[in-house]
């Protein structure tokens, strides 16, 4: 795997960890937050300072970053989560900015707005992936335990929850502390990935991005938040070649989900065989209605296929380069000096043609398969006497 791809995977893992934290708090405990980038900043700076000033091993520094962020989250949660309602959300608006501004102005420790350079690059792809896997397992385990049920109970109906013996505000604070830990670890990993951190990296926009990822993936679905992070991170990264327009596509993707699936990609379901079957059957209905969506599916499958069957001049470039090149082709804005093979252009043009041809072909096949699946479904329904 190339450096570029490894970088994307690392960044993806880092984002996933932060998104899981926000998902627990917003999706499972039901409190919106607009300041979680602040906890990432705390984690990042803690880890950076510990490594550079105190010579702490990076592994311990990451964990410490998580725990310091968790501690701050706990302190902030105590007064703001006592009450039910949007108090924390309003407070978090200011808190995220307050944490950033403290870091920006505390020159002696954080070196202020110029940023904190010279952090060793300890976040390699394996490190990030191992952290992601461990933290994801932990998160799924929490959700499938009495704590997960308690969080959901507090979210769905706090009066009922408190009359089932839950000290609801304590669970809200616990949820915030755990999510602070995840964001702290994520920030620490980000510091080791970038090797340079700056307060502006953890601004309001980052906080909003975290929430939008979670809403995009589906509130109350941990696998949804991972899928959402993957899609949105890839949208940003793949379209880097059309830098000024990529946020347009980012917005477009968000709007599309809002229109097509307002409950988020996964809704409140986790990714398991039952949901996949359900989603497939839903997708069948949706797809049957719109031919355009067939074309979309065809395009997604056709893209890698067109790469495999591309005319000879293009075969010299790697898959990632090819993927990065497709958007600039479609949107007609090729960045000068893009690191692409010079002989790409004629090949790529024909590649797009192939993509379209294949999508049309796949549209037919997909339609046929869906028809068959529908038949099977109907038979089952008839057998069940429905």
């Amino acid at each position, binding site marked *: 795997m190339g450096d570029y791809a490894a970088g994307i995977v690392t960044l993806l893992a880092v984002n996933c960890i932060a998104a899981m934290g926000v998902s627990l708090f917003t999706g499972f405990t039901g409190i919106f937050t607009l300041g979680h980038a602040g906890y990432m900043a705390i984690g990042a700076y803690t880890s950076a300072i510990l490594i550079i000033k105190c010579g702490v091993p990076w592994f311990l520094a990451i964990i410490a970053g998580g725990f310091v962020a968790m501690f701050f989250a706990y302190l902030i949660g105590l007064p703001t989560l006592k009450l039910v309602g949007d108090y924390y959300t309003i407070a978090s608006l200011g808190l995220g900015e307050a944490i950033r501004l403290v870091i920006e102005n505390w020159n002696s420790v954080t070196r202020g707005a110029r940023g904190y350079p010279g952090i060793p690059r300890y976040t390699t792809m394996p490190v990030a992936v191992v952290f992601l896997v461990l933290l994801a397992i*932990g998160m799924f*385990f*929490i959700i*499938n*335990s*009495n*704590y997960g*049920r*308690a969080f*959901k*109970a507090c979210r*769905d*109906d706090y*009066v*009922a*929850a*408190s*009359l*089932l*013996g*839950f*000290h*609801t505000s304590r669970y809200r604070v616990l949820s915030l502390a755990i999510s602070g830990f995840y964001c702290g670890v994520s920030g620490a990993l980000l510091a080791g990935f970038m090797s340079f951190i700056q307060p502006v990296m953890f601004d309001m926009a980052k906080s909003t991005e975290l929430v939008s990822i979670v809403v995009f993936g589906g509130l*109350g679905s941990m696998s949804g938040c991972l899928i959402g992070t993957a899609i949105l991170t890839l949208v940003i990264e793949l379209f880097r070649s059309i830098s000024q327009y990529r946020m347009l596509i980012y917005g477009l993707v968000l709007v599309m989900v809002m229109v097509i699936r307002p409950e988020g990609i996964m809704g*409140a379901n986790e990714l398991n065989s039952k949901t996949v079957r359900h989603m497939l059957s839903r997708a069948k209905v949706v797809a049957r209605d719109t031919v355009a969506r067939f074309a979309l599916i065809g395009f997604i499958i056709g893209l890698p296929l067109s790469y495999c069957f591309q005319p000879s001049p293009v075969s010299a470039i790697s898959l990632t380069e090819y993927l990065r090149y497709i958007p600039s082709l479609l949107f007609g804005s090729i960045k000068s000096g893009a690191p692409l093979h010079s002989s790409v252009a004629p090949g790529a043009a024909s590649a797009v043609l192939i993509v379209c041809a294949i999508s049309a072909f796949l549209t037919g096949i997909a339609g046929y398969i869906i028809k068959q699946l529908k038949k099977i479904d109907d038979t089952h329904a008839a057998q069940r006497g429905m």
Partner: protein
Amino acid sequence: MSSHLELKRVNKSFGGIQAVRDMSFSIPKGEIAGLIGPNGAGKTTIFNLITGVYDVTSGDIEYEGRNINRLKTYQVVALGVARTFQNLRLFAASSVLENVMTAAQYHHKYSFFEAVSHLGRWSKTERIIRDESMELLHRVGLADRADQSAGTLPYGLQRRLEIARALSLKPDLLLLDEPAAGMNAEEVATLNDLIVKIHEDFKLTILLIEHHMDMIMQICHRVVCMNFGAMIASGSPEDIQDHPEVLKAYLGEEE
């Protein structure tokens, strides 16, 4: 028999509105008591006062001789009080089983680290919680719908689910807020049987709010009737039935 729950001159006002006025009654241990009264009489407010959702303005609520005026909801639960709600408060998106498990876990705890790692007591405790919940679902006749999401159940079954959820807290005192609301006569009859049965099997004291008078007459040992926040009569169901004040409250006064 000693009194299980006793209200002594309890008052509750919301701003200028006095919702409960000088309510005093007591329920002996092991009885089924009914709380009746026209709509807006303050019955549910009494429940909210007992369970700590509201604080009393003045007066005392005693549970087994202990003053529980200032206790928070979850502390009242710890004493052994469970309740259902008039306007159902199920976790609608969760499955039927999960609804009961959420409550059943109250008596089966494990540490946070066992939850994160799924080691130690986790698997055993989760199994116990699940088994207990399933048993309760069997009891209320919802076992075959365990995986359905609670919000999609018919109304009558949702009420039964609320009872199962409350029972999983292993209470001594069960407060039922209009368990038969919206049910037809047949459903009410089976609910009657259920309530009588759980009353015996779990050795419960039950206080229930109800508008179905035949239900009150059949299963209650004593009845408290209130109107406009104040008690107007109390006694055996037979006494209440013919009480002039009660008739007045329900039927209006003769000109």
